[in-house]
């Protein structure tokens, strides 16, 4: 009926390199910082935007607000002492750190993990994924102005945190997956209480679907926005749901099964639009898969068995020289630990490969130009990035 210009103003000139020519002195542009103290930023990071009107012509991400020098700290801790700090690398989904680190140490030290411990690890990882997706979908709702979703799903996440607490003894940093196994088995009646949580979660997710995923405004805000060309996935290192939203069924759980994922029955949901909508939807569908996986794990888990192997005295535990890379499919994509040992009692180098590292830096900077200010937060949330794993 009405045809406004399809693209918004082309006011900034396009330079020979295909980028906007920006000269702040002209007064046409305004520098605008989002973050680190900003409710729309997923954590403590910032984006330096150059705007023209309310169109963003350039975005630079700035990280380092959460930098604690983990990889350095790990180098002066013994192998067991590293264990409590790895989980801190990623606050909302710490378990992948614990798993990847433990698995890397086990591989280099030649330790076998008991079968039951593998199941419990998978359980923990899926519970973590559940929480992470809850935060992510709630965050997408929040970033686009629908706080109710965030409220509901944070509540559901709280319920899952209760299960976490019951199983691991802690709410956020579980410190449960030790090299050699896990700290303890399931408490009495855990399955039943978990089922209650899952049922509640499903109820809230049904409501969320009605509220968010069949919502005209939400569709309007997300469809076609933040499109990532699937051809760029490899060059920008896009993994996980972000890739699955663009039709690439990348999932480490399927591609290179670890723990007990080869014994579990699940499909990897794929969307094809590669925009914010697709990314949100693929997460939502993946969350449903996760709920199913949790049920499967609890049903198929062996009822008895050791959960921990005896370790050599960890106070002077030395691991021969070697290097390895362990990866897992976190809720945001490929999560990996690159561990180098040199035969001493300390890791030579630990490198954490968080998916946010590629998603929030190069990719986000690539995506931001040309969007509206209002979409920057949504874009960031849709990429589902956690700053602590970028800077570590």
């Amino acid at each position, binding site marked *: 009926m009405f045809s406004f210009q399809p693209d918004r103003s082309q006011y900034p000139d396009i330079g020979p390199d295909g980028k906007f020519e920006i000269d702040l002195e002209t007064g046409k542009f305004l*520098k605008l*910082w989002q973050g*680190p103290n900003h*409710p729309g930023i997923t*954590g403590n990071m910032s984006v330096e935007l150059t705007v023209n009107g309310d169109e963003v012509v350039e975005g630079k991400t700035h990280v380092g*607000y959460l930098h604690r020098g983990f990889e350095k700290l790990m180098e002066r801790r013994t192998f067991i002492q590293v264990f409590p*700090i790895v989980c801190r690398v990623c*606050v909302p989904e710490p378990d992948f750190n614990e798993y990847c680190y433990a698995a890397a140490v086990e591989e280099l030290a030649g330790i076998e993990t008991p079968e039951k411990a593998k199941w419990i690890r998978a359980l923990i990882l899926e519970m973590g994924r559940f929480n992470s997706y809850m935060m992510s979908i709630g965050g997408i709702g929040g970033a686009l102005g629908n706080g109710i979703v965030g409220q509901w799903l944070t509540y559901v996440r709280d319920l899952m945190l209760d299960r976490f607490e019951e199983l691991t003894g802690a709410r956020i*940093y579980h410190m449960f997956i030790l090299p050699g196994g896990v700290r303890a088995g399931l408490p009495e009646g855990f399955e039943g209480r978990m089922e209650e949580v899952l049922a509640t979660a499903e109820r809230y997710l049904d409501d969320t679907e009605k509220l968010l995923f069949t919502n005209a405004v939400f569709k309007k805000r997300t469809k076609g926005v933040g499109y990532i060309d699937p051809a760029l996935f490899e060059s920008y290192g896009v993994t996980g749901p972000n890739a699955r939203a663009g039709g690439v069924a990348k999932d480490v759980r399927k591609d290179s099964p670890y723990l007990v994922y080869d014994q579990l029955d699940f499909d990897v949901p794929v969307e094809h639009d590669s925009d914010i909508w697709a990314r949100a939807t693929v997460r939502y569908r993946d969350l449903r898969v996760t709920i199913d996986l949790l049920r499967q794990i609890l049903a198929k888990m062996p009822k008895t068995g050791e959960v921990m192997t005896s370790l050599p005295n960890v106070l002077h535990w030395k691991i021969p020289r070697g290097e390895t890379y362990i990866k897992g499919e976190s809720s945001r994509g490929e999560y990996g630990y690159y561990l180098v040992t040199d035969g001493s009692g300390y890791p030579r180098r630990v490198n954490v490969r968080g998916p946010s590292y590629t998603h929030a830096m190069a990719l986000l900077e690539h995506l931001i130009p040309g969007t509206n200010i209002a979409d920057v937060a949504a874009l960031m949330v849709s990429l589902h990035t956690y700053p602590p794993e970028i800077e570590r």
Partner: protein
Amino acid sequence: MKDIDKSFKKDTETDFPLREEMRPRKVTTPDGQVIDIDPLQDYFCQEPPKVHRKSYSAIVEGFYNWARANSLWILGFGTGCGAIEMRPLMTPRFDAYRYGIQWRPTPRQSNLLVISGYLSVKTLKRAIRAYEQMPQPKYVVGLGSCTINGGMYWDSYNTIKKLDEYLPVDLYIAGCMPRPEALLAGLMDLKKLIRKGEAEGANRYAENFDWYKANQKSVIKDWDMPDYSW
């Protein structure tokens, strides 16, 4: 734990190279005036804040304190891990709103700065800025062990250990990280402090401004930052 390298000496010689636009210089204004500008002057906030005395009337002050205690507006600045446990407080499970606690996105409208965990030097700079922008009286709560004595990151080259060196802290909550319940308990304690009129951190900051600034400058070398980054 690896032994400390006793021979290691921190590089105290090298000054942080001041970017060109940060140097003091003379500028000609459009109407031809020549003025001195010193961009860093602003960032340092050399001007000490005013010490605000309490109201002369104890009853009025009491009423004010009651109001302040029951309308705690927290700056939604998640400085570290602890931020993740602040979120449940805003949501149905814990619903801190019913205690008069709310979140504000801008420091100008906040009364309470919750330092949620460790502060990297880079964030410390922003936290100080945010704190200085908050209107008085303002309160600081140190959430988690990291704020008390460095916590997990006691040997990190990039995180501070004692928050009270840099900001006047009213209350600490132990934990790594503290659960929402503990945080809530802390906020309730803070309310009691405010009601008793004992939460005068802002005045403490103003009175010992030089000390705080010296401490801050000892760890922050690059003071350049956009003055509105929230």
